[in-house]
């Protein structure tokens, strides 16, 4: 499962449309980020890009219109809890439940999923596992409706450096797969083809974020980068 994170509406709607369309045909899944002006889980590249999108006042519905028009691969929406909460948890899932395959909410830990579901949200929420997750945390994920489990490989924000073959990391991912019988996708910190090859020796997939967002402003470069990873 090869996936890429791109930021909705960045640097403008036209370029976003072009990169989304390209990815929808090439990647196994696309994570579309909805910009938030307090992005605690993001590193400087994504945070700065998000702040530009927020200033340009782009609407969530306009981003999802593009998703609807070109969607071929699976699509997950990644953002922060207040974005969904203000949209209306029920309203969002009624409107987009059929279109999107899941959501990734950076500030909604697994134990708070119930809060979303109890308030009328019925799109699968992708659970997180981290190097710190305890056995009982992981066991609790067995019943998830989500397509996969998101492994946050880094203690830190997006764009940090990681040793992808660290024994503890590798063992943890293997343990999660065994314990939950779910696919595990590795996110945070992946930059190159070489990184993805290392990760794919033990995980079922990867997501590249910062390196993709960096190139959203230049669609030719963006496409070249995607090809360098996928081919």
């Amino acid at each position, binding site marked *: 499962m090869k996936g890429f994170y791109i930021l909705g509406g960045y640097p403008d709607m036209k370029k976003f449309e072009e990169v989304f369309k390209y990815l929808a045909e090439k990647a196994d899944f696309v994570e579309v980020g909805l910009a*938030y*002006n*307090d*992005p*605690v*889980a993001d590193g400087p590249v994504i*945070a700065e890009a998000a*702040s530009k999108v*927020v200033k340009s006042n782009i*609407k*969530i519905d306009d981003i999802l219109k593009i998703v609807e028009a070109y969607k071929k691969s699976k699509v997950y929406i990644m953002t*922060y*809890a*207040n*974005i*969904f*909460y*203000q*949209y209306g948890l029920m309203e969002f899932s009624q409107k987009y439940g059929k279109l999107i395959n899941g959501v990734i909410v*950076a*500030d*909604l*830990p*697994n*134990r*708070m999923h*119930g*809060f979303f579901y109890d308030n009328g949200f019925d799109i699968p929420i992708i659970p*997180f*596992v*981290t190097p*710190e*997750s*305890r056995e009982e*945390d992981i066991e609790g994920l067995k019943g998830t409706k989500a397509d996969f489990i998101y492994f*946050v490989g*880094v*203690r*830190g*924000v997006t764009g*940090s450096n990681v040793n992808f073959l660290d024994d503890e990391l590798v063992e943890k991912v293997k343990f999660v797969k065994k314990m939950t019988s779910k696919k595990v996708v590795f996110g945070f910190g992946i930059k190159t083809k070489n990184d993805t090859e290392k990760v794919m020796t033990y995980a079922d997939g990867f997501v590249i974020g910062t390196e993709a967002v960096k190139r959203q402003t230049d669609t030719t470069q963006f496409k070249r980068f995607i090809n360098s990873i996928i081919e």
Partner: protein
Amino acid sequence: MKGFYGEFGGQFVAETLIPVLDELDKSFELLKCDKDFNDKLNDLLKNYAGRPTPIYYAENMSKKYGCKVYFKREDLLHTGAHKINNSLGQALSAKKMGKKRIIAETGAGQHGVATATVAALLNLKCTVYMGSIDAKRQSMNVKRMKMLGAEVKVVDEGTKTLKDAVSAALRDWVSSCNTTHYVLGSALGPYPFPKIVSHFQSVIGKESREYFENLGIMPDYIIACVGGGSNAIGMFKGFLDVESVRLVGVEAGGISDKDGEHAARMSFGKKGIFQGSLSYVLTDKSGQISNVHSVSAGLDYAGVGPEHSFLKEIKRCEYHYARDKEALDGCLELCKLEGILPALESSHAVGYFIKNASKFKDKTILINLSGRGDKDLEIILENMEGAI
């Protein structure tokens, strides 16, 4: 649900922090009943910080406004504000948990100074995050923190104020939580922080309650300013069960009702999820956090502690606001009448009282003076040209 006050609160943070928050909760529950810990904390509160703080009957002010006005003097504490109560409690807990480093965020700088102070005292490494606008308007406090041996990291992102200092501290904590404790400065953020901070601040309400019990009366009103809500919740906790006491929180009304020109979350905000909890928050329809403004760096924050939202919802406490100008007038009035220079945060409580003095006629009012105004001198002088 655990960690909620009614529908408010919760833990809206990265999954990475969940094990640390659990560990923190567990160790806090043990420590808060631990005799050694409490003896040590009480000793420091008394002999280092200067507790109990007095309650002062303000005769001149009472006479002028036709009521009985008392002040709880948290401004007399070491480092100049109630923040030291919480910093001592949390840093001592961190030490017991074996952490070698503490981090903090600060707006006005008071919480940063208090945390840097206890870090020096307890031999902990300390980093304080502060927005660049706040660092500029509270430059004296930046210098103090550095003298105390803390590293001050100036945050030049977003609104460059408290919100971004909190985000930066949270980001640091996500990467360092194995060795580091985050001394959150107010009764907000993810559970268990609101509980922990209000516990360490409840000493304000406890002492006040004792004082009035000894007098054989109860105040009719208690007024406290609300930034994140820690000095107010600490005070209110002592009186929640006394129905006759009306509890009033005063937020920063800034310069107008317009979005971006105030920080009155209870009056103009809505329910939302922000920096760890569900509470009243200043946010737009699309979920973006609004800009805020206050003349006082300690009050301009888009969110508020979840317990306050709950107390508003069940109508146990009422929340109002004072404008910048009313706070500045309150500040000057207290200087002139009583010879006390209050922090601009606390001045909001004073300003609200003065503006509504007719409502308080013949009543007994206790105002919490959360801190002293030395740190705000430049801002006061800048804004009150001609009046002084």
